[in-house]
């Protein structure tokens, strides 16, 4: 019996573990390896340069810019989709007529490709006939034609708004799932004790939504590290690298300048940041489990 269980474990796990090891784990360690070389992507020969790539990171003005932009993106990712998603979930949870239809509407963007979302928002920000400027012109009466994506001051923020538009639906459904798991008797007690809607939200709902909040914030932060496709479509990291993120910078160095060694070093930094966040996430998830069992 024991022996046959071992046999089946090996047989059943062989394919998934092999594929995962070859195409995910091994490349991960390979990235570490290449980060110590000056490989250019084509030449089969390359030299070990030690920590040179990592030393270069410190003096790379574009890298520093990318780190700052990635941090801005993360902070915005924690605030925008989380708060909007929470607000939408609370609104929809209070049994609005047509709730399921609204839920679908808010959730719909998540099934769209970043390419399409980027395309849509390029048109919103378009200087001459874009929706945003059309509205501003209608309200102010002036001939406003600011090119949101073409100006270094607003390019990153504009992309983040577009990205949040897509992410909000995801936060909303996670909060909604959290809200449905709150026991009904608790809410009934609120009503009997005569708590106002605001008190009910502040004292009962928000604290009990802690687990959902941990998940939403962590997902937003992790997804913000992956922010690449929509940037590539909307600004390409420009103008003048004003919207470069780490993922974008890594792509440019590796596949535009063919500095694969240096690109690997950036991806190692990206990995370490992701690892730190994931560890915090898992630790909090455990705490959440301990509290709410």
């Amino acid at each position: 019996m024991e022996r046959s269980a071992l046999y089946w474990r090996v047989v059943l796990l062989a394919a998934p573990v092999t594929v995962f090891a070859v195409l995910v784990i091994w490349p991960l360690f390979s990235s570490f390896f290449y980060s110590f070389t000056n490989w250019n992507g084509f030449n089969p020969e390359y030299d070990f340069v030690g920590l040179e790539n990592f030393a270069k990171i410190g003096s790379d003005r574009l890298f520093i810019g990318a780190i700052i932009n990635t941090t801005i993106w993360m902070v915005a990712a924690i605030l925008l989709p989380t708060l909007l998603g929470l607000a939408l979930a609370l609104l929809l949870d209070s049994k609005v007529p047509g709730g399921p239809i609204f839920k679908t509407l808010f959730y719909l963007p998540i099934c769209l490709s970043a390419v399409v979302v980027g395309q849509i928002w390029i048109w919103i920000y378009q200087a001459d006939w874009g929706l945003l400027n059309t509205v501003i012109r209608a309200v102010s009466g002036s001939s406003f034609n600011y090119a949101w994506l073409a100006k270094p001051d607003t390019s990153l923020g504009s992309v983040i708004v577009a990205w949040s538009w897509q992410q909000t639906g995801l936060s909303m459904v996670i909060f909604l799932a959290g809200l449905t798991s709150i026991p009904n008797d608790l809410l009934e007690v609120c009503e009997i004790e005569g708590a106002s809607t605001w008190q009910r939200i502040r004292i009962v709902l928000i604290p009990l939504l802690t687990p959902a909040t941990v998940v939403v914030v962590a997902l937003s932060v992790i997804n913000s590290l992956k922010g690449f496709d929509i940037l590539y479509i909307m600004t390409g990291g420009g103008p003048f690298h004003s919207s470069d993120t780490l993922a974008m910078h890594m792509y440019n160095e590796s596949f535009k300048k063919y500095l694969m060694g240096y690109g690997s070093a950036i991806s190692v930094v990206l990995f370490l940041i992701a690892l730190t966040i994931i560890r915090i996430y898992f630790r909090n998830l455990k705490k959440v489990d301990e509290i709410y069992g």
Partner: protein
Amino acid sequence: MAETTVSVPSVAPFNPWKVVLLICVGCLALLFLAPTVGVLLSSIKTTREIAFGELWTIPGTIYWGNFIEVLTNPSVPQYFLNTIFVTLPATILSIILGVLAGYVFSKLPFAGSNLLFLVIISGMFFPPQVILIPLFQFFNSLGLIDTLWPIICVHTALGIPICTLLMRNFFATVPNALREAAILEGANEWQVLIRVALPLSLPAIAVLATLQFTWIWNDFLWPLIFTQSDEKRTIMVGIVNLKGQYSVAWGVQGALSLIASLPTLIVFLFFQRYFIKGMTMGAVKG
């Protein structure tokens, strides 16, 4: 408000609060819909109309020229075929691998299986850039760059974490007694998996099929890296390429975006329940 709801009324009294809520949600929904409506409108308007600032008005007549332009472009069917050739095998393969691993993690745990499980599912949290260069180098050395193979392989591998996670959680709800009864009657683990656990897990497979299909169809990064010639592009990279060709033909770009999103929109509208379930399960239990 407190008094009225203590005894549950059979007919809800008129509640002005509801109307306020409805208006709030309605306004937000309008704001949320505006971008999507913009694409719909652009696809049925001429470039002239759009350039003169009439994109955001309801048109009197529908202009079909953009759709005709897209559907007669010889590249578009090729992009679609390529995307199908990538999406279907990668979706199916990743689910099969997830079923195998998920079954072991839920029904045949062993010393260290939790750690292995954690390693596998953490795969879904890392930015793909972390493994981009070595994978490019790997498939380049096999001479597979500019074919669809690397995209299929990578999506299969990257689908393993979410598929394993969902299948493990779902198999955990299949009673152990069922498995033991089957084993007592002489079935082996493979037969238990195929004949007992799998038929009970069709909802989980539906969830994964919707999620994986949508993600792989919509993906941009991997086909961008692994393909070079126009004949091998998938639809999402393809429509970015075509943007150059139609640089000011905004209506054609809108029609392209719409047609490229049609398969995922259909899947979403029909299988929305599974989609949402998968998103929340994957997120909350992760």
